[in-house]
């Protein structure tokens, strides 16, 4: 709770910088628009204006400044514009309308959650395998690392096409991609976590003639809990990114990614920004939920959270 004030301060500073930045970013466009409406701009040709920086242009034509905040196709929408658009499309539209961000949010969220669950589960399985089998450790771990360097986005359209061809549509193809992206952080984190007990602890268990399985449940798994949560937080945000990215190239009609693309293609940047921010808020909420679970679980286990 004592973090609230510092976080707020940082957020306020960032927003202030944003508000100020709107002017130089948009002033050229506002100048063009205003001139078309008959206003007097210094310098008075678009070409001459291109040579001048945003700051200088705004200082020479202070009457443009308020206009930079209300442009229809701004380079940098003002916080107010984004906020209004978000409010409008979240609360102002029916939930199942194609213009509602809540509808698009769910289209993105469903495969994210499904993919995250699958990816975490498989990641855990593989981590256990790697920790307990030398063969798997030496043969698979290097490839697990390499697998993350494959730009999954390039495979996204192919996976969706392939799965579509065998009759799998909808949530599942995007989940596959989300699962792929959350899988690796969980593998790496859990391998580290399952291997984290120090030698003294392991030796103690050996003096009790503990089997590997018992050792797993009694020592390794509890010790790996902080690592599990850290990996899950990375994993869930990776899943969300994965789903959004999977929506981009396939010309999807719904979901946050689709909205971002639509806004870009139809020259409605405010739409893109609203979708981007909503995606951000969703990511924050998801990570926040995991953090809450983490805090209560670790507290019950007596582990101080990092």
């Amino acid at each position, binding site marked *: 709770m*004592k*973090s609230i*004030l*510092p*976080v*707020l*301060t*940082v*957020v306020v500073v*960032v927003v202030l910088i944003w508000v100020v930045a709107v002017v130089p*970013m948009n002033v050229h466009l506002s100048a063009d628009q205003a001139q078309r409406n008959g206003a007097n701009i210094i310098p008075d040709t678009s070409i001459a204006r291109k040579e001048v920086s945003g700051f200088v242009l705004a200082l020479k034509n202070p009457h443009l400044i308020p206009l930079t905040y209300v442009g229809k196709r701004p*380079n940098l929408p003002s916080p107010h514009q984004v906020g209004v658009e978000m409010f409008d499309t979240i609360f102002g539209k029916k939930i199942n309308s194609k213009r509602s961000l809540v509808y698009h949010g769910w289209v993105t969220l469903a495969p994210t959650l499904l993919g995250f669950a699958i990816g975490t589960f498989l990641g855990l399985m593989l981590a256990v395998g790697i920790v307990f089998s*030398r*063969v798997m*450790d*030496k*043969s*698979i*771990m*290097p*490839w697990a*690392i*390499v697998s993350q*360097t*494959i*730009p*999954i*986005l*390039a*495979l996204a*359209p*192919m996976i969706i096409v*392939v799965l579509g*061809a065998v009759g799998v549509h909808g949530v599942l193809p995007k989940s596959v991609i989300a699962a792929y992206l959350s899988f690796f952080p969980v593998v790496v984190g859990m391998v*580290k976590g399952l291997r984290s007990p120090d030698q003294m602890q392991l030796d103690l268990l050996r003096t009790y003639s503990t089997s590997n399985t018992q050792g797993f449940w009694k020592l390794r798994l509890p010790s790996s809990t902080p690592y599990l949560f850290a990996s899950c*937080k*990375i994993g*869930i*945000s990776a899943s*969300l*990114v994965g789903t*959004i*990215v999977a929506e*981009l190239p396939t010309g999807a009609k719904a979901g*946050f*990614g689709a909205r*971002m693309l639509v806004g*870009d293609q139809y020259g409605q*940047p405010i739409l*893109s*920004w609203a*979708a*981007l921010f909503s*995606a*951000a808020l969703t*990511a*924050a909420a*998801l*990570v926040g939920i995991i953090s809450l679970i983490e805090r209560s679980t670790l507290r019950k286990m007596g582990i101080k959270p*990092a």
Partner: protein
Amino acid sequence: MMYVIAGFAIWAVGWLLNVYLANGKSSDHWVTSIGIPLIFGITLLLMWECFVVGFEVNPVFLPRPSDIILRMTNEVSWLWADFNQTIIKGALTGYVIGGLAALAVAVLADRSEFLTRGVLPVGSFMAALPIVGIAPIFVKWFGSDWQSKAAVVAVMVFFPILVNAVAGLRDTTSMQRDLMRTYGAGYWPTLFKLRVPAAMPFIFNGLKIATTLALIGAIVAEFFGSPTVGMGFRISTSFGQLALDMVWAEIVIAALAGSAFYGIVTLIEKGVTFWHPSQR
């Protein structure tokens, strides 16, 4: 049919070979450590080849590895140009800029407990965001050449490195900090002699995560506008032409580049954090 059987046979041989090597006497030797994953990989490749032929999979869905390799050897100059554009100009530049900025901000934020408590949650929040969504915006701002891609990469790697660096700088025990206090050491000596070295394992954790992000960022950003060169550009246009083997060829290059990048950072990590229990 023969191919399918051959595929399974190769799988069996590869697996048994690896079991033998992994549990054998020389299992820690560096040759074996490289050999085992290599055998695993080659086995997988051969299985892929056999199954694609044996099950008569449509090459539009899944080309044969041999076709991909053929394409790669034929198009070396294109592949190199793409690599240069995307990896070197886009990803690497962005990585360095983003990394340096993150470390600078981490040290700045560290000066004040108040700032640290503000920056850490905000940074973690930003690290979780779908930053790739920024790509079209950056293309509009910086043009479609490599600069906008580098900018996307810089923003993408900034937050994970920042969060790890801040966490690392805090990770000293109170005893070590007390020791510094008994020497009357001020902020800067304590920072450089104790907290920065102690933070290195964390920083490298962030740097390793950032290598994969840099690659993905550079390629994805190209989907939103690129001159007629670049891996993302090549992938999307080749896919449009149904030249799947070219797509896979680019993916192979991406994978190799990414692994090399990650490997180099890991090597540097071994040198810098030789003292950490995980390296010994």
